[in-house]
């Protein structure tokens, strides 16, 4: 029997739970407004214990305003430590529909996987992809706790758009990450520091196996490799084409500049960015630019986002919900673009009706890629509701 390490913290929105073996089952709850909250907290604790066959444990809960999913995660963490259970129990998860490969992914919003306060309400900000992080934002000692927390977040929250999890490298805990969080059925898994076909294949095989065990449709879980090293950039064409699960490649500039010894600037990142876009397009998938880490500089963010859009990126990372409006503005089709796309598609339909092989608009030939781009712009526009000021 392991000693009861404390699961969780005393931060706002979190709770601290310990579990130790006892003669009988014992639940002790401390919280503000105990009269109001005690029965609810008790019910959550008992729900988790039932999954483990209601063992005789003394559970102590110190609540600091944790929502049910946080509380359940902390209790599960404490119970698994006490019972030395490493395999995750089943969880009743929200059923998500499979990710459409070509849906708008203007933004991918990072949220640290170990911080209940920052995870609370992360789904309401309108991000195209929420990216729950187990990698860089989570200290080593908190990885195991965080992956259980994220499983519960995934199971409890109906994300209006897409939800992904950034795991650790497969040999650095990423395998456990996948086995845990896949129970919550995320749309996809983000693979950091992807450097080769084998990295992607390795993850895809792990997903094959895990999906089969958990009864998830084969191929449901998509992959987003993050290219953020010199090797990754040089191999990105193969990475992008490595597996049908891959729907988007993302760029990570912070690690990349460190890896190649560059100072971060538009110029120093241009090669990597261009490589990634070409690789993604060649593989028929999307590309997303790196994050802009100065939260206090929305103008700088807008310039960088517009430059990324100009290069061909479909979207950009966000470190805080405050950046989303700016990013969405940069990557949404403008009203002019929508109007032009409408005319291109109309011209193509007209050409088809009249049986003419070539499509022309304003005296210029419209070739296949331009038409496809126009159709895609219209699909985006429809999906996003209206033109460029969509936030």
């Amino acid at each position, binding site marked *: 029997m392991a000693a009861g390490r404390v699961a969780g913290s005393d931060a*706002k*929105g979190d709770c601290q739970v310990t579990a130790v073996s006892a003669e009988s089952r014992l639940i002790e709850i401390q*919280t*503000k*407004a105990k*009269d*109001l*909250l*005690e*029965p*609810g*907290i008790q*019910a*959550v604790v008992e729900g988790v214990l039932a999954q483990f066959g209601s063992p005789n444990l003394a559970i102590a809960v110190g*609540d*600091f*305003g*944790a*929502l*049910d*999913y946080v509380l359940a995660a902390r209790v599960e963490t404490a119970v698994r430590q006490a019972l030395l259970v490493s395999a995750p129990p089943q969880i009743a998860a929200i059923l998500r529909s499979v990710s459409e490969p070509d849906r708008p992914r203007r933004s991918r919003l990072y949220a640290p996987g170990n911080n209940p306060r*920052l995870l*609370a*309400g*992360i789904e*309401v*900000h309108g991000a195209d992809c929420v990216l729950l992080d187990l990698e860089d934002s989570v200290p080593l000692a908190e990885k195991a706790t965080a992956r259980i927390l994220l499983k519960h977040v995934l199971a*409890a929250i109906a994300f209006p758009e897409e939800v992904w999890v950034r795991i650790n490298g497969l040999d650095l805990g990423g395998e456990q990450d996948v086995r845990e969080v896949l129970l919550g059925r995320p749309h996809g898994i983000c693979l950091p520091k992807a450097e080769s076909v084998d990295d992607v294949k390795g993850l895809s095989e792990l997903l094959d196996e895990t999906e089969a065990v958990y009864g998830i449709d084969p191929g449901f879980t998509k992959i987003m490799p993050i290219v953020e090293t010199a090797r990754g950039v040089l191999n990105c064409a193969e990475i992008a084409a490595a597996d049908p699960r891959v729907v988007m490649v993302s760029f990570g500039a912070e690690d990349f500049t460190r890896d190649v010894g560059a100072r971060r600037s538009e110029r120093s990142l241009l090669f990597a960015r261009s490589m990634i876009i070409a690789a993604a397009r060649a593989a028929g998938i999307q590309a997303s630019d790196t994050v802009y880490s100065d939260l206090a500089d929305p103008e700088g963010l807008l310039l960088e986002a517009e430059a990324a859009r100009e290069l061909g990126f479909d979207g950009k990372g966000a470190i*805080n*919900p*405050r950046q989303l*409006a700016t990013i969405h503005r940069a990557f949404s089709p403008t009203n002019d673009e929508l109007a032009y796309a409408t005319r291109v598609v109309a011209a193509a339909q007209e050409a088809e009706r009249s049986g003419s092989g070539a499509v022309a608009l304003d005296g210029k030939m419209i070739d296949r890629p331009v038409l496809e781009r126009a159709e895609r712009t219209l699909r985006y526009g429809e999906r996003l*509701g*209206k033109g460029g000021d*969509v936030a």
Partner: protein
Amino acid sequence: MKNAIGREIPERIGSREVAPFQGAFAAIRNDRKLARYQKGALRDEDKVLPSIEAAIEASGLSDGMTISFHHSFREGDRVINSVLAACANKGLKDLRLFPTALFPAHAVVIDHIKAGVVSRIEGSMNGPVGAFVSQGGKLSEPAVLRSHGARWRAVEAGDVEIDVAFIAAPQADSYGNATGIRGTTPCGPISFSTVDAQYARKTVVITSDLAPYPVYPMEIQQGWVDYVVVVDEIGDPENIASGTLRLTKSPTRLLIARMTTDAVVHSGYFVDGFSFQGGAGGISLAATKYLGEEMEKAGIVGSFGMGGGTKMLVELLHRGLIRTILDGQAFDLDAVQSLREDEAHVLMDPGMYANYDSRGSSTYKLDAAFLGATEVDLDFNVNVNTHSDGMLLHGIGGHQDVASGAAMTMITIPTLRGRIPVIVDSVTTVTTPGEVVDVIVTERGLAVNPTRQDLRDRFLAAGLPVRELADIKAEADKLIQPVRRPVFGEEIIAAIEWRDGTTIDVVRKVEGFE
């Protein structure tokens, strides 16, 4: 009996007969009232007394009488505690305390209640005093809570007769003229006490900065003042900003502020000459900031912003985005400084702000207001007084006044505070009725009162996330187990008055939980 919003109100509360709330604007008064205390003076009367004790003696304060105070120093106030200590030393009993508000700094009031020095309270009780009174059996009569405007009305109407008004004055002259915006420790306007000074049997100005005659601006005038007392310290201006005055970093709260601003922009009211009031909470401050950005972008200049003055509001004035600030109280020292320096930062007393029995309230000139709440319910009723556990922990402030005055009243709330839901089926206490609440803004979207189809249409046309309040509630409720509700007994802790003196709700003693 049930009042107009279905709340059970007894016919008498303590020794008072109660008129039930009949609607936000049900009765308009048209008669004469004579509640003012008349007293003349000779040419060379000396008003300066050496101590608070001397003033208590001179005023003839005796057992059972009513004493009043303002709250402009908030957490920094020293005068309420000093006067009560002096009353206790003099062996006075059964005083009725009539402050505009009490704060945690006044927790010593609890000891005075226990000792019998204070036996009744009419006024806001923020924090520990409210928690103590909520236990029941502490006061000889239930407390009465009124909004800023309603308190003014109650004094004028003679509902509350003040025996001695004690007025903390950052600067005063020996003849009684006094202001809160000058002196060694300025706290901002003290005009909450203007009506007290006019109507009290005796008025005592307490200052730590006695300046040569005449002191101005004369928020308190010589003709209303009986005595002037000089003391070492009346309050600490650093504490007038009571905790809430930080620009929030919470993404959820910023999102609410963003949505609030978007709603204002698309409300139809956002045109040149636009006016608004926001509170001092984190969401309000952020919304004020965003609103300034939108005004700049749209080239709109507002006619006035209404205070509680804040740094944020002063910045809008300095940037030329609003022409005027009408200010009843200062929430930070930037606002106090601006009141001294900016001609367009105008002092306003609560009578001008929101007296129901008057021929005009500044709140009626407001286009938009954003206010907070401890709870809202599916009828759009708002509670700012009690928590979901039934504890009386906050005053009304200007909530009723602003909500019933503004053309568009928005309540800005997160759907959850920790594990406690903010949207409930029926609020624990109704402070402000749903009939004067137009929009509820949460991080999960905004809900429009069904009476405001016009606003709903405009918001939908602008692509704002308009939703049914019940749907927002259901989404938040999924994240938590149901919360136990308190069971209330018969004993009434406090009456919540509406602006016109009718009773909109009562706070009852909590006997247990479901």
